[in-house]
């Protein structure tokens, strides 16, 4: 099945799933309340957005310089830097490190880049034991599912469903108390941290000025992932760069505000290198893998370059009426929601993924909320234009040509309206049935009646 038919089939199921709709709405209603409280605590939220957008613009437009500075600083403290042009290269780099270390088990903290390159599959295929340490990620890993949402990987599940999963997979007792569920996961994970040979993390920000990465989290799992195993690997998209350390003063609260509705997340850590001489803890080796994977192609697109501003806060997913009704898995992409619909055609091919840009009413709620001011819904429109230009659909092109032909000939247009008025009663006879030419509309909605006297008729008659 093609990607578009798969999307449509899944969307049909999910859009009618009222239970799913309710779970997501309830979860997001709580998010909306706390997000708005935090937004209001900024002295000037729109000013903060503008500053963030300008900072990211600067970072992305001078990416080469920032990356050179970032990696030079990293290397000066003994970090090994690797460059991966694509997903396959990134997997090879990680697998080689794992092999060199004769590692048997890997513990991971949340990293969308790892989802993007399907790292877990590759590691497991190579015979490694891989454990996700973020609670939400662990839950979807146990369910053998992809994350549902960039920030809330398991938001589609109820506490009871999670409890059942833990009983089955971790042998725990039944409970639907969130704290107890967290403790069950923690107990299972603690042993894994101690026995893991390698810890793999992502990064929220890469600070060029100081050669540090910033990881923001609520469970402390990323700290343990980075601190306990002897070898640490960080898989980072090249667009994560921020020029200066002081930029974090804006970006950390902004990410927390829009991601989870917090002033700051519970743990914010900066990593600057492996264990230095005289230090008592930290990994012996730190490898940073910088991932391009088509990001430079997006960089070359002057119109949509701002999509690289994304800080993966998930705010655009949360306000998107499409996401809220079809859910994260329907997209079948690493990045779902508006940002996913914008960038997936760049990352994985326009013709295969253009349907995501069409599956939007272009309502613009995403653009309005985006803290780094990505022009998301206009990029969806540009993707549609680029797709139609590159490979037009014959049926659509022909019908729009006919449409334009008629629209530019008022007599023909008005004749069409008269014909429609004659045929509408006939269409009424087959309304909503498979032979109804308007069935895409009429299966769930009534069609309005054509007015016996159009506006133009009225205008002419009154003169």
């Amino acid at each position, binding site marked *: 099945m093609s990607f578009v038919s798969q999307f*449509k089939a899944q*969307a049909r199921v999910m*859009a*009618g799933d009222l239970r799913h*709709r309710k779970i997501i709405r309830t979860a997001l209603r709580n998010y909306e309340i706390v997000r708005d409280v935090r937004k209001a605590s900024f002295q000037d939220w729109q000013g903060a957005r503008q500053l963030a957008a300008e900072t990211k613009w600067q970072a992305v437009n001078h990416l080469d310089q920032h990356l050179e500075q970032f990696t030079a600083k990293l290397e000066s403290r003994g970090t090994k830097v690797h460059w991966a042009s694509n997903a396959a290269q990134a997997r090879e780099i990680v697998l080689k490190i794992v092999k060199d270390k004769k590692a048997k088990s890997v513990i991971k903290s949340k990293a969308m880049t790892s989802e993007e390159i399907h790292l877990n599959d590759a590691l497991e295929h190579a015979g490694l034991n891989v454990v996700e340490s973020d609670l939400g990620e662990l839950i979807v890993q146990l369910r053998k599912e992809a994350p549902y949402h960039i920030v809330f990987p398991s938001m589609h599940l109820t506490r009871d469903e999670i409890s059942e999963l833990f009983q089955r997979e971790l042998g725990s007792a039944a409970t639907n108390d969130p704290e107890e569920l967290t403790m069950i996961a923690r107990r299972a994970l603690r042993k894994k941290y101690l026995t893991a040979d390698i810890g793999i993390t992502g990064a929220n920000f890469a600070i060029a000025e100081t050669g540090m990465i910033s990881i923001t989290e609520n469970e402390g799992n990323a700290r343990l992932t980075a601190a306990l195993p002897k070898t640490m690997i960080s898989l980072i998209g090249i667009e994560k760069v921020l020029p200066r350390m002081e930029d974090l003063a804006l970006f950390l609260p902004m990410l927390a505000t829009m991601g989870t509705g917090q002033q700051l997340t519970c743990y914010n850590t900066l990593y600057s290198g492996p264990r230095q001489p005289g230090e008592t803890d930290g990994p012996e080796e730190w490898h940073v893998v910088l991932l391009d994977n088509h990001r430079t192609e997006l960089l070359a697109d002057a119109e949509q370059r701002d999509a690289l501003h994304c800080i993966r806060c998930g705010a655009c997913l949360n306000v998107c*009426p*499409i996401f809220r*009704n*079809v859910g994260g898995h329907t997209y079948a992409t690493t990045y779902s929601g508006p940002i996913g619909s914008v960038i997936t055609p760049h990352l994985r091919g326009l013709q295969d993924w253009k349907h995501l840009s*069409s*599956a*939007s*009413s*272009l*309502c*613009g*709620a995403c*653009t*309005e909320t985006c803290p780094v001011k990505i022009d998301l819904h206009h990029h969806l*429109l540009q*993707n*549609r*234009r*680029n*797709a*139609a*230009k590159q490979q*037009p659909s014959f049926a*659509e*092109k022909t019908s*729009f*040509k006919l*449409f*334009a032909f*008629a*629209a*530019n000939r*008022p007599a023909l*247009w008005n004749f069409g*309206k008269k014909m*429609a008025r004659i045929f509408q009663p006939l269409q009424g006879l087959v309304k909503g049935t498979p032979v109804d030419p308007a069935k*895409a*509309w009429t*299966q*769930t*909605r*009534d*069609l*309005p*009646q*054509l*007015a016996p*006297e*159009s*506006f*133009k*008729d*009225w*205008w*002419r008659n009154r003169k």
Partner: protein
Amino acid sequence: MTVTLFIPCFVDALFPRAGISMVQILEGLGHKVAFPESISCCGQPPFNSGYWDEARTVAAKVLPQLANSEAIVIGSGSCGAMLKVFYPQLFENTPQATLAKQISDRTWEFSDFLVSKLGVTDLGAKFPHKVTFHDGCHGLRELGLKKSPRALLGKVNGLELVEMGEAETCCGFGGTFATKFPMISTAMGEVKCASATETKAEYIVSNDSSCLMHIQGLLSRQANPLKTIHLAEVLNLK
């Protein structure tokens, strides 16, 4: 002033009362109304589907017919955004770029024209009903209209405005989206209708007939007694 009315294709064929109300309101305020009869459509359907050449073919015929207008008024945020925001993009680097920009500058959505350009809010209308207002997305986010329609509704005698929780949420119409992805569009419309129903209003008012067409289509199918009406019609009832 002479006001040139742009009547969207679906208003002409399906909702002429919205257009007629605008003519009567503007004439009632002492303005002359002009209507270029040979305009059929602004070209938004092919534009939003990505077929910009075809959209340009349609829009190129619209431009000269609006060239000499003083003010262009549209009773739809969606078509309004097409003329105001997207025509300049569509004609960028073409010989009509300047004209497209001039027309963009002169284009007004109906409620905004009344409030921001004419400075009128009280039209002496009477509509003794409880209503809720639906913000069409293009009007709200492309044109930044939030206050004008409410300022007008606030002056209607007997009218009680109850805001719905999902006032700013898309109704799911989205032009060709509604038939390309009917399942998603319908789900979005259901959310909208449920939120409007919760207010116990009798009418959903909007400044965009295209959204109302979608919402009314769902309400009728669900036998929901809630009714839809264009803002101009409300403002024209005495």
